[in-house]
């Protein structure tokens, strides 16, 4: 266990040296919320939420979309080791491959947590977001979504050979999945074909959970289904990634 924390602490030190990406991933959704809040208000009111201010879509939408841009972080973290030439050194240490991967998940999950918490707090402080449903439910959906994004990161690590592939997959995948999942616009405004396939994305279930809490004032019971779906998908993806991952694969990276 201590080796897992050592890897996690080490990654945190690396992040502290260059936190620009995280800062950008927090600042950008705040800017987006500012511009899209009014548009979302019209959309939500048309969907029957007469009291909606738009922030109920803008904040979770920003969280879901910009969190998904961080889903490659777990993979980036290992690719960075290849770039530094340290991956084989880590493998030759007493840490097992499982410990290395577990340690490599700590900072990506913590990063997602910081991003989510800051965006919800900023939403409350600057845009008037009020969480009338269950806070515990909000937390449960968030944790399940972080797990799912980290598992996707594991899959990217397992299947991508170059850091550019991870980058492209995280960005394009993040955009497409977020769009389909209802992060750009409420699900009700999506075209019919998109509404049909939306439940196939983790982002849909995260948005569904958040909307239940923020728009329907739901209790934790209402988010059990989306949270469970996200956790099951996480487990399946992580299982596939572990099966597919070969620690001896040479990854092309830059430090």
């Amino acid at each position, binding site marked *: 266990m201590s*080796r897992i924390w050592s*890897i996690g602490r080490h990654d945190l030190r690396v992040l502290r040296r260059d936190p620009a990406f995280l800062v950008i991933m927090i600042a950008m959704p705040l800017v987006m919320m500012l511009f899209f809040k009014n548009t979302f208000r019209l959309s939500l009111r048309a969907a029957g939420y007469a009291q909606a201010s738009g922030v109920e879509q803008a904040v979770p939408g920003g969280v879901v979309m910009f969190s998904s841009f961080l889903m490659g972080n777990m993979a980036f973290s290992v690719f960075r080791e290849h770039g530094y030439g340290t991956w084989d050194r880590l493998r*030759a*240490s007493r840490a097992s491959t499982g410990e290395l991967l577990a340690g490599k998940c700590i900072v990506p999950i913590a990063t997602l947590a910081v991003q989510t918490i800051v965006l919800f707090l900023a939403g409350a402080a600057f845009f008037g977001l009020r969480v009338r449903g269950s806070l515990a439910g909000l937390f449960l959906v968030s944790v399940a979504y972080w797990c799912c994004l980290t598992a996707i990161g594991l899959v990217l690590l397992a299947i991508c050979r170059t850091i550019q592939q991870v980058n492209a997959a995280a960005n394009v995948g993040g955009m497409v999945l977020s769009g389909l999942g209802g992060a750009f616009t409420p699900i009700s405004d999506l075209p019919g074909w998109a509404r049909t396939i939306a439940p196939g994305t983790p982002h849909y279930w995260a948005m569904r959970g958040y909307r239940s809490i923020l728009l329907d004032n739901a209790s934790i019971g209402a988010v059990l289904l989306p949270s469970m779906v996200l956790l099951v998908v996480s487990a399946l993806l992580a299982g596939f990634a572990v099966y597919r991952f070969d620690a001896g694969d040479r990854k092309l990276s830059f430090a």
Partner: protein
Amino acid sequence: MLGVEAVRKCYGSHQALDGVDLTVERGEICALLGPNGAGKTTLVSAIAGLRRPDSGTITVDQRPVWPNPRSTRALLGLAPQDLGVYLVLSVRENLALFGELAGIKGQALVRAIADVAENLELTDMLDRQARHLSGGEQRRVHTAMALIHRPKLLLLDEPTTGVDVATRGRLLDTVRRLATNDGCAVVYSTHYLAEVAGLGATVVIMDRGRVLARGSLDSLIRQHGTAAVEFVFDGPPPAINGNVTIDDPNRVRVATTEPAATVANVVSALGSESVRLRAIDIVQADLESVFLTLTGRRYRADYETEASRGDA
């Protein structure tokens, strides 16, 4: 400390290791010498538990490395061929990570960092980021990361590649001290012939995945080395009698135990061709001549790199 027996490893159709046998005792420095592509890195990787051999056995302190390489990793320190340092972190942070992974904590870790930094003259730069260090200093940090937990078996894969003379000297001193004072067994792969003499190591000559010879430097030169005279011509060399090797379009090498007599005989036999003679080099019996005797080829470090085949 280290036993390698009949180890084979293929990458596709390329035989990287072809029945390698090797033993290294406590306090012994074993220099793996061979050109790029000889199989040195593959062998070091197999010992470190990074690449599984197709067949054969590897033991460290009488424990088999495979199928469970973790069982021997506590005994190993590895400094791979390519520089492996976190450039954005300080030297101390680099060392601390590998100390922690080896299970060293608290004050013991602080002492271990101080000790290894002192050994490799890194004390003054412990709190500097590695990216601000010179190439030679980064190489010392790279080596220090392998030493932090005082391994019983140290694997150094071409540790002096690209470093200056002073850094090379320091690294060689450190390796000798570790073997002599700590009883550390060291496997030191290199393609620099000159380094081997400086290490006072047992020499293992590898080529194309095989161990060609093993012994002290003196014994190898005694057994396999021959002096020679090399004649360099302007254009293709003429026919010359004797034990002749030609692996350069303009150069002829004549193996001999009496260089002066050979020079006289060859020059007189050249006749009118002597006007094309540009240089005469007398080559003492050395490791290069040992390699030539064993392989029939002149020693060049860069015959064919393992990396170029994607299997380093």
